């Protein structure tokens, strides 16, 4: 599949069309017809989650999310819009990098043993409704898992690729959605990650509100996307449609709920012993919610299980969090005993040391860590507090 590289911007001449609700439905049907399992934002348990969708009816029409530190509520909005909500608690990493995976199984064989890797078929997913921040997060994880080159510390020396991630990523069809509305905890603009998808998609949709009926500007970002778009019932997009889409995105940009201070990376790197760490640690519950909802957090641990006979073993890999004491355990005790050190590890990794490792920020400004923090700790506020204290000298 040819796809615009995440860093090179969108293709020069995207083919574009205007789709209505039937067109959106036809898009989902066409993807399903092509063998993709379509995953999109739909309502479950009072939140918008990323679940399988079978038709446009499954999408979250007319729902708006109110988000703030430790707060998430869905309220009615314009019934003619399917994407006026922003990001929910889940990110796409759960489909590219599942929370639990079997790495291999082993069987005792005399005094030795044999090892087998499960022959899992690679799921062909179509991700519908990928926001710019989450698209940027995929580009970040591509660097982490050795799929894309990077300018970090070990640039050019990467010897390993996570084969499962690489296979799922390559098989995925991506329908991005440019945001026409920013959430209360969004700060993608200040991270340079959104609200408009910069590339790395097959198709990008921009909802055109105020038309009275659902209308989407659909732009192709890859040959596969263009081929699919040509099969959909729609009419050609004119300059006024593009202008309306751009205005919608600018509307989102103008209403970002939060903003990250500039140069947060060097700021945190020179403030590893700042008193603010103790202050935030007094509020932090070390619950790990922020790491679970973060679209770029990639840490895992392994679990070995053995059956009762002792002859069959399985090694599982599951998501882990730097907020657990166990995470840094070596013989003699954990390196990061205090909540202070664990919060500092998470935040400095995200905003600062990620640059050294992978030549990019580990934060894309999606705001999930703020919304889903049970005590409403706000990464932008913490960075600003350190920033402002420097100003005071």
């Amino acid at each position, binding site marked *: 599949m040819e796809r615009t590289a995440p860093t090179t911007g969108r293709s020069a001449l995207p083919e574009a069309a205007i789709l209505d609700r039937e067109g959106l439905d036809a898009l989902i049907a066409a993807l399903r017809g092509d063998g993709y399992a379509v995953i999109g934002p739909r309502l479950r348990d009072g939140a918008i989650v990323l679940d399988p969708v079978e038709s446009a009816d499954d999408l979250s029409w007319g729902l708006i999310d109110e988000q703030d530190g430790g707060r998430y509520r869905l309220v009615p909005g314009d019934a003619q819009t399917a994407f006026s909500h922003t990001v929910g608690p889940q990110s796409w990493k759960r489909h590219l990098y599942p929370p639990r995976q079997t790495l291999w199984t082993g069987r005792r064989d005399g005094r030795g043993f044999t090892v087998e890797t499960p022959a899992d078929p690679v799921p062909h997913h179509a991700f519908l409704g990928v926001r710019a921040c989450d698209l940027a997060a995929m580009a970040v994880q591509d660097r982490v898992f050795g799929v894309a080159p990077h300018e970090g510390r070990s640039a050019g020396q990467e010897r390993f690729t996570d084969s499962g991630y690489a296979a799922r990523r390559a098989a995925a069809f991506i329908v991005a959605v440019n945001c026409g509305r920013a959430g209360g905890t969004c700060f993608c603009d200040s991270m340079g990650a959104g609200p408009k998808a910069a590339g790395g998609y097959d198709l990008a949709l921009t909802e055109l509100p105020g038309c009275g009926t659902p209308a989407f500007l659909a732009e192709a970002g890859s040959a596969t996307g263009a081929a699919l778009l040509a099969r959909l019932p729609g009419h050609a997009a004119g300059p006024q449609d593009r202008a309306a889409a751009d205005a919608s995105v600018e509307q989102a940009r103008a209403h970002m709920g939060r903003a990250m201070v500039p140069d947060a990376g060097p700021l945190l790197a020179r403030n590893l012993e700042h008193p603010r760490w103790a202050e935030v640690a007094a509020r932090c519950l070390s619950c790990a919610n922020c790491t679970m909802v973060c679209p770029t957090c990639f840490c895992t641990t392994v679990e070995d299980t053995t059956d009762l006979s002792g002859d069959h073993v399985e090694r599982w890999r599951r998501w882990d969090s730097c907020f657990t004491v166990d995470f840094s355990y*070596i013989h003699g005790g954990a390196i990061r005993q205090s909540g202070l050190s664990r919060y500092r590890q998470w935040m400095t990794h995200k905003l600062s040391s990620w640059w050294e490792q992978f030549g990019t920020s580990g934060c894309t400004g999606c705001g999930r860590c703020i919304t889903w923090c049970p005590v409403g700790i706000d990464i932008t506020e913490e960075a600003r507090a350190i920033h402002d204290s420097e100003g005071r000298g």
Partner: protein
Amino acid sequence: MDSALLPPTTIASADPMVPRPFRIVRRLREVDGCFTLVLESQDGRPYVFRPGQFNMLYVFGVGEVAISVSGDCRDPGGLVHTVREVGTVTRAMAALRPGDSIGVRGPFGHPWPIEEAYGQDVLFVTGTIGLAPLRPLILEVLNRREHFGKVVLCYGSRGTHDILYEGQLHQWRGRFDMQVHVTVHSAPAGYRGRVGSVANLVKIARFDPEQTTAYVCRSETMTRPAVQALYERGVTADRIYVTLERNMKCGVGFCGHCQMGGSFMCKDGPVYRYDTIEHVFSVREL
């Protein structure tokens, strides 16, 4: 011994997360609580490593630990690991006997640089079981002996009964082209060897501080006084290599456990040039 460069490191396994079965061919008792396993590959594929690299060793049904390779990288006869019993996995490993199998993933990690020290004196600073991960480097420096000036080993142990590889230390001390200094922290009355800290050995060792590369393989706490002693002799941070230790789960930079600041110890370390980590070394709980 051929002093040509080592063959390029090859990727050990198609999938770095899947262990290869190795058979234990020999088991040696070392000092109390330590043992050495000599392993041979059961899948017929060769195993190539560089001094300073480590493996993830897996005991069937128990778990996996990161252990440095302790043998000679030019010896095709077997993969050598010296292990100290400290936890669940290493205790189970201690119970294995020749003929049993063990899983190996690796080699992982950034090796000790060697060519960088050509033309200089070489100083090894280590203690107790730290000699195990350093031994492949010492052996390789001796393999390429003509490229170096003086070669000095400073080794310290707690007492007279936990001097690792004692026979080999005697053998090295017998060479005319190597200085071996051994100290113990405490000794019974009448002990005729040196008593005191390894840092004191650095003070008395004969090398040219302006032209020396130092390799320090100690615990994080003991690395500090070793580096301090080197500074006092005039060895600068850009010619000191140290090794560090963190929790390792994957070995390839995917699991995140071994991070220290901006580096992954499993792929950027465990060997670091001291000036590249000096700024984070003093930060507690990083």
